[in-house]
């Protein structure tokens, strides 16, 4: 049977998916009705604002800033491994960071461009994480009254918030200790090798450093996997490798960073 639907199609295809009800014009909810936990972005808001208002947009920011932070953490660790090559190597490397791209750019400008990107990524990561956490708390105001029995969530995924906070607090101390030197009485600007040695010869600092870097490795174990999902990078052919990648990244960062205080305390770095 031939279908004569051409005129009908015209009207239906024009209907599309316009926002069904413009914000703020809905009828007030009846007392028994469920109220939304969040207001949507205004329908005419600038698209990046609308995108960021969604949890998917915030997770996208988490993933992209996470990639910047992962790259930084990896390069930072590789740079630090130069302490094993000796005092001159690592101090020379530290000086190179400041003179990078000279004379095309004035001294430290390239470094500050990288630092700006890093600071932006850091704040983007923290602000999104905070807002997502608040969103999740609002999505379940009444908790389960009986104990939950988690099946799939692992230790890393469930402690992201806490490992993140530990790493964040550690970064502040780390800057005070080895960048500004205010928390390190032996601090000499530019002498990376001795600064590191004097810092880790304090057992409490070495212990805090080890704890923070184990937290960082646990954070990476979940983050470096779930960033693929947040960005929509999913292909059955490569999915198993996402897990291997995250595990390897976490182990490399964890082992590399923890080795520094351990080797100072063991007297290898002296």
């Amino acid at each position, binding site marked *: 049977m031939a279908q004569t639907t051409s005129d009908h199609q015209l009207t239906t295809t024009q209907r*599309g998916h316009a926002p069904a009800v413009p914000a703020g014009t809905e009828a007030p909810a009846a007392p028994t009705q469920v109220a939304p936990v969040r207001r949507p972005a205004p329908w005419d808001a600038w698209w990046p604002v609308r995108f960021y208002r*969604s949890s998917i947009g915030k997770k996208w920011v988490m993933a992209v800033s996470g990639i910047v932070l992962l790259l930084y953490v990896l390069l930072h660790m590789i740079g630090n491994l130069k302490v094993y090559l000796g005092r001159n190597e690592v101090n020379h490397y530290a000086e190179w960071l400041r003179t990078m791209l000279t004379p095309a750019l004035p001294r430290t400008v390239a470094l500050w461009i990288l630092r700006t990107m890093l600071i932006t990524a850091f704040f983007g990561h923290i602000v999104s994480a905070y807002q997502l956490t608040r969103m999740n708390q609002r999505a379940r105001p009444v908790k389960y009254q009986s104990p939950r029995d988690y099946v799939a969530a692992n230790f890393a995924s469930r402690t992201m918030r806490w490992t993140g906070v530990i790493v964040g607090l550690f970064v502040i101390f780390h800057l005070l200790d080895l960048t500004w030197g205010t928390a390190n009485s032996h601090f000499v600007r530019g002498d990376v090798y001795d600064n590191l040695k004097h810092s880790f010869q304090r057992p409490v600092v070495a212990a805090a450093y080890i704890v923070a870097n184990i937290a960082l490795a646990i954070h990476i174990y979940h983050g470096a996997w779930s960033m693929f999902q947040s960005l929509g990078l999913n292909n059955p052919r490569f999915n198993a490798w996402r897990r291997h990648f995250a595990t390897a990244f976490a182990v490399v960062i964890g082992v590399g960073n923890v080795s520094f205080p351990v080797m100072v305390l063991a007297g290898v770095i002296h």
Partner: protein
Amino acid sequence: MRVHLRVWRQPAAHAPGGFEEYDLDDVSPDMSFLEMLDILNEQLVAEGREPVAFDHDCREGICGSCGMMINGQAHGPERGTATCQLHMRKFDDGAHIVIEPWRAAAFTVIKDLSVDRGALDRIIQAGGYITAPTGSAPEANSLPVPKEVADASMDAAACIQCGACVAACPNGAAHLFTAAKVAHLNLLPQGQPERFTRVQAMVDEMERWFGSCTMHGECEAACPKEISIDFIALMNRDYVKAQFKNRRLIAQSA
């Protein structure tokens, strides 16, 4: 077999609730979980007490009506199983079983174990359909669908909208539900014309009611249809792509 039940009782939506304890002495291991609750309710009615309210319909695992937290797991300990298809033989004799309703801001308790899952319908209303004239089915060969695509779409379409993903999610997110409903249509050729407006509309509606996804994977483990969290990645990708799609502009550029 004997079971010791600890069941959430709540007379109405905004009334205070609490656990009540019941003992059942003569439960057959062949009973489904809901049949066990039927026995409990018969016992309660015989004693002149209020029976436990819970949602159920087909009892064949396909309607999505039933659902409750059983010992801290959505739909109980058996994977890929709705509450109605969970049998008492999965529990030990003399087992202690705690039963609680789904908990989420969008899932208000109506009574006891029965919750309002209307927020999921709102997500469907926002875009979980194809704007097409209905009539008699078109000739099947006029629109070829690759086998792999049909299979993937069917895997997503298996969603029965029970809400276990939201209930199981530590964040109270409905990403697995929305992703399944988005993917079911967005994978098929019939879904392409509205692909990006659909994902935008459905996600925006979801955002009003539910939390965010942190990829714990609890939803996938709880899902009675074992829908994969891979669909969430697909939804995320389409949602990002939708930000850059403006087909209207292309049409106007001449």
